[in-house]
């Protein structure tokens, strides 16, 4: 009997090769775009090489008569693996569709680099717009290698760097400079991911056995309790792990950018979900904001669990508007908080709430290299920068001493204070409506970030021998 060539395996391989070739055209089209750095193009070349590798392996499979015509389980597994790897390759590539300079927030790249520098010297960042209202972090090169390793495929091609972080921001809101303070939370994801010792953080939080016991006792009679207890333990630990990661990223975000991070969180998070709604992935917004308030109060020398007055905040936040905003939210988040209930998410929230100081200490000891923003150290600088915004100029430098370059994080903090306090006087001075004034403040802050980086680089380059 003559051997029949073709068959379903052959069709499958040919279809996959055709898809990979179409993918190559997609990569070529992306490479023709305008990027603000070389990295996206280097990544595209890397993905192209991996794709070529997949096509070569598929061609080998196609030429393997044993597999094609008689079937070979091991080779069939290979086919599935290459297809999976290709799917992932496509997803990381599609991020680079939204990296064009005209659509991204170029002012933030140097700031994020400088914030992450003490942690990682060879870090390379790709900022890309997301089609959704969210922020994201990924390490595309390591992920690709991990997936390839798990699929037992070797990726021989060299990536552009071992340490690439791809950070997404809401693409429809590139001009919302101040809310982009939340990018420091995404840096936190990178740090938690690469700092293997941070994996032990969840051990700092103990879930009360009594609470689990009470929960199990509530199951209807006749339902076996042992499997319910086991399921609950597993579920609570999984939720705890995810939540601790998110809280650790908030702590790192606050550590890097100070009160600006709290202001940005209050502006952004409550728009995403109800205050008390939690999911398996994310703790409730009330818990996150409440913990950030505790960080702020500890920094200002107040009792972390006490609800502060507007007057207390005004001592530190220069302008009445910013102080009133903080006072209102402090009362809303902390004084109006409902008690923890007997449900799994509340049990995890309560455990984190009670162990927060221990968690904080553990995070602090792991990220000592990071530059910590101390509001007290920068109060004078922030005051001057708010004054410049009040004078309708970008706050990229100080008035005293003249021409001293402003700190980028102080610029963000000053920007928030101006945004919350100066809209009315600036609108009346310039004859602008509220919306125009808010946009102008964000533009001045973005311009200041751009200019202070130019000044800083100028000084660095000049001091290295011109």
């Amino acid at each position, binding site marked *: 009997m003559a051997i029949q060539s073709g068959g379903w395996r052959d069709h499958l391989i040919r279809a996959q090769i055709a898809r990979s070739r179409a993918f190559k055209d997609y990569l070529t089209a992306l490479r023709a775009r305008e990027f603000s750095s070389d990295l996206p193009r280097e990544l595209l070349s890397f993905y192209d090489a991996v794709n070529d590798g997949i096509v070569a392996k598929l061609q080998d499979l196609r030429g393997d008569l044993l597999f094609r015509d008689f079937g070979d389980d091991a080779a069939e597994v290979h086919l599935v693996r290459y297809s999976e790897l290709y799917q992932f390759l496509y997803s990381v590539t599609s991020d680079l569709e939204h990296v064009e300079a*005209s659509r991204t927030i*170029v002012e933030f790249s140097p700031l994020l680099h400088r914030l992450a520098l003490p942690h990682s010297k060879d870090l390379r960042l790709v900022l890309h717009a997301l089609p959704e209202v969210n922020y994201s972090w990924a390490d595309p090169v390591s992920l690709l290698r991990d997936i390839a390793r798990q699929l037992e495929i070797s990726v021989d091609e060299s990536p552009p760097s071992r340490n690439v972080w791809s950070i997404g921001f809401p693409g429809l809101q590139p001009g919302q400079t101040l809310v982009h303070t939340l990018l420091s939370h995404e840096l936190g994801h990178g740090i938690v991911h690469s700092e293997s010792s941070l994996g032990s953080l969840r051990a700092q939080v103990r879930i009360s056995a009594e609470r689990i016991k009470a929960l199990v006792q509530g199951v209807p009679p006749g339902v076996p309790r042992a499997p319910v207890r086991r399921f609950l333990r597993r579920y609570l630990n999984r939720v705890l792990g995810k939540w601790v990661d998110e809280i650790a990223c908030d702590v790192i975000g606050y550590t890097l950018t100070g009160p600006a991070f709290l202001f940005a969180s209050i502006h952004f998070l409550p728009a995403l979900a109800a205050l008390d709604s939690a999911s398996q992935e994310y703790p409730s917004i009330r818990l996150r904001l409440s913990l950030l308030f505790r960080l702020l109060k500890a920094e200002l020398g107040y009792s972390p669990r006490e609800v502060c007055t507007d007057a207390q905040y005004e001592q530190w936040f220069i302008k009445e508007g910013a102080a009133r905003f903080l006072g209102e939210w402090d009362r809303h988040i902390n004084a109006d908080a409902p008690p923890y209930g007997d449900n799994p998410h509340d049990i995890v929230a309560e455990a984190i709430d009670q162990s927060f100081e221990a968690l904080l200490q553990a995070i602090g000891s792991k990220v000592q290299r990071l530059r910590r923003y101390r509001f007290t150290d920068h109060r004078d600088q922030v005051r001057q920068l708010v004054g410049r915004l009040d004078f*309708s*100029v970008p706050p990229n430098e100080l008035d005293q001493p003249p021409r001293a370059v402003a700190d980028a994080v102080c610029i963000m903090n000053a920007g928030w204070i101006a945004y919350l306090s100066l809209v009315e006087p600036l609108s009346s001075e310039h004859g602008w409506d509220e919306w125009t004034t808010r946009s102008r403040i964000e533009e*001045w802050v973005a311009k200041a970030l751009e200019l202070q980086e*130019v000044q800083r*680089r100028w000084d660095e380059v000049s001091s290295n021998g011109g």
Partner: protein
Amino acid sequence: MPVQSGGVIRQRLWESFDQPLRRLVVTPILDPGRQIKEGEASIDLRLGVRFTVSHRGKLGEIDTNNPDFDALFAAALHTYYVPIGSHFVLHPDYFALGETLEYIKMPEDLAGYVVTRSSWGRHGLVIATAVGVHPGYSGVLTLELRNLAEVPLRLYPGRSILQLFLHDVNKLADEQRLRPSTYEAGTRSGPGLLGRDAGEMQAISRFGDWKKHPPRLS
């Protein structure tokens, strides 16, 4: 009206923080020694990092009397971000909008005008046609870049490219603050907003309509 010397400009920039009405802001001045020379009467300004060009294929002609002109024109523009260290190529006869790196805020008693630094002019680069900077103006300055030479020019953001001269403004004691500019406090360059001259456009378009607007008999 006297032109301000380098020394006076320095005073206005760095010694008048407590006098908001007299305070001049030009920021950043990366190299004060080179940008504001003693004995000269101007500040050197640098080229910024954004360049806007039009896609000619998308525009038929520019009817500056069309009320939708601004929106139509803006849709046919593309802005390139060119970080310091990279370059933008301006081809012969090519037109692009650029901007100054510096953000400027003029006090009420000073006005200014900008001119291309002569070294660039000798290579065929013409920068500013709208050279006047009004008292009270704030924002970056938009540059109308055109290469009149026969060879393409590489333009590097951060290079000193034009000079800002400043002079006193005489005004009546009871004169109100001057009207803010259309482009006040902008941090990015952009196309002209001719659509805002709607009243002028309408008046001009009526000129030829003798039926609706018959000439008056004297």
